[in-house]
């Protein structure tokens, strides 16, 4: 027993990746507890009355009070918070006040749309953003670099809402190549759900037509989301590469006669990616938390609008459920980013 404990302690204190992940996960529990407490208190102290809203517009005071009692909102806040923690440990996020459905079911029904869009945007962002950032750094102050600078500044400055509408007007209305919004047309039955991602499920079900339609529906929201994200990634990659350009190891590799492409895309990029990876993590977190404006304009049934709606309607359980999801996403991404950092730069393992 004592030996096992010593081994566990040694593992816990070790420098291995799994020990690191476990330690971070343990610390993360405190983060979730804190996030839930803050969200719970804030959502309960704003002067809205969800019991009154649920009761209906002409409910009497007695009916509202009866409903408040039934929902448990007349108990002390600290009791309600404690009950929430107990339910959370059991995996129960409670029921939506307005739909009477489990919040977890509501979140799960919207999650695939958010994940599909976020993944598509991240793929575009990384696949384009990193190479463009590298090339801009290698051709510093060239016309290519200047164009990239203009485009990236635009990406950061242009409001997503405006860009979304311009893309709709151009590609859906004027040219007619792409749909205005939604994930699929009404008359196309979604593929049998395996992952919830229509593109993946369509391929798994052997439905190429549905796959193409789903891709086309993804196109405009993906571009709108990816544009500002890509601007960030390009700028960070470019800056990282510029830092690395004249490092001694680069000069050494050149002196050794290694091919330039190998030096750039393997050794330099690896060194330059540290801050880019952090940015990719942050952007992923934002995207996975739902993109409210993009979802609204492109009629994309994701988490963002559900969260906003829940906040507006003071649907406490839904707000808390969403908050827990976002907290988990950020924790997972932060851990993943740290792990990737260790892989890119083993010195960061300490």
């Amino acid at each position, binding site marked *: 027993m004592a030996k096992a404990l010593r081994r566990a302690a040694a593992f816990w204190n070790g420098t291995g990746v799994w020990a690191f992940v476990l330690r971070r996960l343990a610390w993360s529990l405190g983060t979730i507890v804190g996030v839930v407490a803050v969200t719970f208190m804030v959502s309960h102290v704003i002067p809205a009355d969800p019991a009154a809203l649920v009761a*209906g517009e002409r409910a009497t005071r007695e*009916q509202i009070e*009866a409903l408040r009692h039934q929902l448990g909102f007349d108990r002390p806040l600290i009791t309600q918070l404690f009950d929430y923690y107990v339910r959370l440990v059991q995996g129960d996020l409670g029921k939506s006040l307005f739909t009477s459905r489990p919040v977890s079911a509501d979140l799960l029904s919207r999650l695939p749309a958010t994940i599909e869009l976020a993944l598509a945007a991240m793929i575009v962002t990384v696949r384009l953003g990193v190479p463009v950032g590298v090339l801009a750094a290698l051709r510093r102050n060239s016309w290519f670099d200047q164009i990239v600078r203009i485009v990236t500044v635009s990406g950061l400055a242009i409001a997503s809402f405006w860009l979304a509408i311009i893309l709709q007007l151009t590609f859906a209305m004027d040219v007619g190549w792409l749909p205005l919004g939604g994930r699929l047309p009404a008359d196309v039955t979604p593929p049998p759900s395996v992952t919830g991602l229509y593109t993946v499920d369509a391929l798994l079900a052997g439905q190429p037509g549905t796959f193409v339609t789903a891709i*086309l529906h993804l196109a405009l929201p993906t571009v709108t989301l990816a544009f500002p994200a890509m601007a960030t990634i390009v700028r960070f990659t470019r800056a990282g590469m510029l830092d690395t350009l004249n490092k001694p190891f680069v000069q050494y590799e050149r002196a050794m006669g290694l091919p330039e492409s190998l030096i750039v895309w393997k050794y330099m990029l690896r060194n330059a990616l540290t801050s880019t990876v952090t940015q990719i993590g942050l952007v992923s977190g934002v995207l996975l938390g739902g993109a409210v404006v993009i979802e*609204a304009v492109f*009629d994309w049934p994701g988490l963002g609008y559900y969260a906003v*709606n829940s906040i*507006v309607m003071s649907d406490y359980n839904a707000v808390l459920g969403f908050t827990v999801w976002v907290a988990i996403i950020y924790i997972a991404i932060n851990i993943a980013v740290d792990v990737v950092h260790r892989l890119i730069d083993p010195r960061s393992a300490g």
Partner: protein
Amino acid sequence: MVDSSNTRDRFVTRRGLLKAGTAVGLAPAAFASSAQAQSASTFVFANPVEYDTLDPHTVFDYSRVATRLNFYDGLYRWLDNPPTLTPWLAESHTVSDNGLVYRFKLRANAKFHDGSPVTAEDVVYTMERTLGINKGPAVLFSPIIKPGSTKALDASTVEFTLTRPSAAFMSTVPEIHVVNSKLVKANTKDNDWGQPWLSRNVAGSGSYKLERHDPAVGVIGVRNPDHFMPWPAKYVERIDLRTVREQSTQVLGLIKGDYHSLDGFLPADALDRLRKANTVQIIEQPSMRLFILHLNNQRAPLNDVHVRRAISMAFDYKGFITDILKDTAVRNPAPVPANLWGYPKDVKGWDYDIDKAKAELAKAAVKIDRPLEIHTLVGLSQTEQAGQIMQAGLRKLGIESKIVAETWPTLSGKARNNETTPDIWTNWISTLYADPQNWVGEMYDSKNWGNWKTGSYYKNPKVDALIEKAVTSTDQSVRDAAYQEASRIVVDEAASVFIYNTKWYGPFAKRVQNVRFCPVGNGQDFRWLNLG
């Protein structure tokens, strides 16, 4: 190693290009077929609000009325404009002499979507469920019907016994959306009245059957060929009630042909844009949706009638309706829509006149020694514009004011109590049933205090008595006269600032025909229309 890596990259790129090329090649075909299929049989309605629940007994609002009207049937139904109460699931009814007992005879050929007959027991269960859940439409019935008092006299006769006479009861009967009691009971757990199940499923007899529901996307219904009400010669086979939140997307989608109809209360600029599109028709109808500014009658200085009258004369009605709203609404100076009975036609209301307002203010006994708060609704620019016009008028009277934008839950929560209700706040009163009780009755009867609709917190025993007389009388002429008189008093005492009654501008694709508009439901009873 370097070479192989590069080779792999190139291979991936080529494969990716091949995939992309295939996708682009297939795209037009996929779209063409989908667009044609959609246009042939499916009517698409773009709604700005999510259809988060299908349960007809938990919500009672205008934004999700399409699911109630198309998947469920009430005993009676409001049709056309002006609204006519029409036998629906019930073929007839009788009322006892004392106005307390209502007996409805159900149609013999009405069937639920699973083929079982609609019986009196289902109506009884529906009423018990409505009262038991005590949400949404329960507020219409709980003051006058006690749980357990509704009886099935036989398979096709149901009897409601009211606790007091209520002439408005018949106006609310269309809201008794009958559910299949056996089906709901089979899906009930822990005495929850089957709420979670019915939020995602339909247990009705309506004109359309549920095909698919995704709260985040919308609802799709297929025609119920066995519906008891004969179908017109042309109809739509499927209805797609889709959530499209962004107004610009709604407008573009209608112009493009992705949607066939939108909500009928769009702002003037969106309507202008739609009018210019040759694929769109705008159907104009007088509606019943009043826009007012509540004045908190219980808080100084607004508890002084002279202050309220001065404020009513400081609002630039013409500037707001003509210049800002481009005459998409009509002035309605009383608390009943001008196109409904019970409206006092002799009432002129208050006009914008700063000089008269100043003279009226001089008569006030109270001194205005603090800025007044005007509360508007976040995201609804029209309420903010109305607030600014009110603020400009008050400034001309020497009254300082502050505009506070709030969300509806926050504002309606405050308005449930006269102590927390703002000084002045913007509000629309929609048609939930076509009876003056829905407006002047519910808004200015002090017995109703504690509900946002009474947000002016006006109290006048004479008005209370007139409304009580109108509610309990079964004589239409008596009711008409009582509501008119109550309205005259309320306007004279400037209980609120009465601004306009909405016109309904139903945006439809040009090929849509036979739209049957009714202010109750705003034309969202889709069984009548077709796609040409």
